[in-house]
């Protein structure tokens, strides 16, 4: 645990910022939380709407098991208290995107209680920069529909496709103290959700969005009045909101004003937050238990299934990569930051170990280095994601095996990889076809060395006169003459011998 010392330097002294996040994460499910309508993104307006979602008279909710299961699994993944008895409440307010006139949510008895998330502020130095952020609760609730204002001069249009889609609201404790911590928390939460598979984490599609609670105080003093900036949809924006809102509050306080507890909106174009017209009655939601639903009681078998189905989680995986596979802290962190990357890496590792008949630990370093430098470099250049990689983990493993068993050199491997990217051919076939196999034929190499030394008699003299740095030059020239296919170790030995 570390204390970060992020401070805002005001005109009257230092201020500390206090941050809490309420993250709404869309639960990955086929059907909605209380109806059998689909949840897919981007459908025609009002086509993914059942009569339940449109709140027709007499329609009733029945909960989707998968949404409950995903919330429980998420809770388990953050080491949280799972409440075997929870209940749905109605949050009553009137708005055009809320057909029932209430949102079914969980106020009094949420399904998941207190948990925690570890964030790392410096990936190169994880031990010294880890901080634990408390999670207050996770509850399950319905999403609202969508209002569109630009289609008609005097009307707003209502699309209920999202109405009733399951959300998890993940409420942190006010444990964060800097924009970086808020950003790291949101990234880490997203990583965990994607590992668990309970949310796809697509922030640009609105699958995850955060309400950012910010207040400032003099270090050591009680919490100040907070503002809540709604629906912030990227890690970068969350950090910007914290930064902006904290300095705005400091300005207000230092000029003798008071911070108003209110809801604000972030405008990414102007990078500022502004007050939402305070909704009348906004704070009287008249929560009460939904009488259309019974208390939700989870049995041990259900919980056990949830637990069994959890994958290895990022923190555990990261430690295993470091301690079990011997990777650097930075590489371990990078490879585990995203579930897809870790999955790709592990496939590469497994295949490499299989074909090289080695342990995963023995092939881990080379695999990690190749993935993070060669493959990532290529994907960056091509503007592709890992899922779209033209090279599969099996093909990558084959390439690395060719290097490991001395069939080709690292230099040649780079060439082969380029050809793989272009043609999609297997590395062994490319090596065969283009005759790229590295040679350990001492006769040919000896001849090449002799030739190089003969053509560079002056440099040989200099070398012998003490300019030992020229050794690399002779090796390089020999390799060049061998078109890179000579075994470097053998070249080294023979050059040494030739110069002796």
């Amino acid at each position, binding site marked *: 645990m570390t204390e970060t010392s992020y401070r805002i330097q005001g005109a009257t002294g230092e201020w500390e910022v206090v941050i809490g996040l309420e993250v709404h994460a869309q639960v990955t*499910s*086929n*059907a909605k939380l209380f*109806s*059998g*309508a*689909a949840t897919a993104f981007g459908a*025609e*307006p*009002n*086509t*993914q*709407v*059942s*009569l*339940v979602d*449109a709140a027709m008279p007499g329609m009733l909710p*029945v*909960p*989707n*098991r*998968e*949404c*409950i299961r995903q919330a429980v699994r998420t809770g388990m993944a953050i080491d949280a208290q799972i409440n075997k008895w929870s*209940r749905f409440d109605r949050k009553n307010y*009137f708005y*055009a995107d809320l057909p029932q006139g209430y949102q079914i949510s969980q106020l009094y008895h949420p399904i998941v209680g207190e948990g925690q998330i570890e964030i790392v502020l410096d990936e190169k130095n994880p031990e010294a920069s880890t901080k634990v952020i408390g999670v207050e609760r996770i509850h399950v609730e319905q999403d609202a529909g969508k*209002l*569109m*204002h630009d*289609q*008609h*001069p*005097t*009307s*707003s*249009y*209502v*699309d*209920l496709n999202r109405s009733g889609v399951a959300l998890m609201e993940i409420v942190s404790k006010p444990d964060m103290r800097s924009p970086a911590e808020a950003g790291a928390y949101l990234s880490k939460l997203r990583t965990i959700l994607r590992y668990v598979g309970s949310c796809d984490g697509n922030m640009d599609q609105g699958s995850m969005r955060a309400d950012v609670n910010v207040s400032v105080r003099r270090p050591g003093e009680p919490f100040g009045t907070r503002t809540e900036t709604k629906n912030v949809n990227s890690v970068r924006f969350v950090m910007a909101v914290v930064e902006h809102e904290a300095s705005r509050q400091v300005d207000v306080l230092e000029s003798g004003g008071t911070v108003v507890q209110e809801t604000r909106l972030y405008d990414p174009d102007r990078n500022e937050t502004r007050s*939402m*017209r305070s909704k*009348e*009655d906004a704070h*009287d939601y*008249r929560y009460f*238990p939904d009488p259309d*639903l*019974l*208390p*939700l*009681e989870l049995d041990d078998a259900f919980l056990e299934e949830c637990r069994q189905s959890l994958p290895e989680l990022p923190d555990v995986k990261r430690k295993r990569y470091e301690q079990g596979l011997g990777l650097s802290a930075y590489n371990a962190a990078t490879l585990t930051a995203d579930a897809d990357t870790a999955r790709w890496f592990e496939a590469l590792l497994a295949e490499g170990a299989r074909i090289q008949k080695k342990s995963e630990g023995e092939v881990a370093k080379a695999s990690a280095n190749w993935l993070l430098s060669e493959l990532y470099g290529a994907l960056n250049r091509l503007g592709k994601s890992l899922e779209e990689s033209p090279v599969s983990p099996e093909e990558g493993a084959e390439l690395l095996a060719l290097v490991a068993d001395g069939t080709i050199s690292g230099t040649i491997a780079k060439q082969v990889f380029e050809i793989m990217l272009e043609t999609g051919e297997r590395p062994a076939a490319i090596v065969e076809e283009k005759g790229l196999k590295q040679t350990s034929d001492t006769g040919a190499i000896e001849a090449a060395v002799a030739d190089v030394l003969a053509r560079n008699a002056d440099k040989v003299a200099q070398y012998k006169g003490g300019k030992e740095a020229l050794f690399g030059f002779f090796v390089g020239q020999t390799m060049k003459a061998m078109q890179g296919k000579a075994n470097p170790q053998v070249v080294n030995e023979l050059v040494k011998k030739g110069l002796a």
Partner: protein
Amino acid sequence: MSIDLQTVKKIASLSRISVTDAEAEAMVPELNNILGWVEQLGEVDVTGVQPMTAVIPNQQRLRDDVVTDGNVRDKVLANAPQAEHGFFAVPKVIE
């Protein structure tokens, strides 16, 4: 507790029911009468009593995660006072 005109207007606003001043004034004694009567519940000793959650013992069942509904836009919009281009339409909302 007795409620005044101001409270009646606030409840009407929370309920989204517009009331004239005269209507609101007429409701003051009416609602007070009813609320005064229900307040006798306060005299019941409920120490250690849990609020009722299910009238008849019953378990909340859970649905399988299968798409069984939707694709009924015509039905959804059939009774709408104003529907355009597949949307419900409402007076313009300024956010």
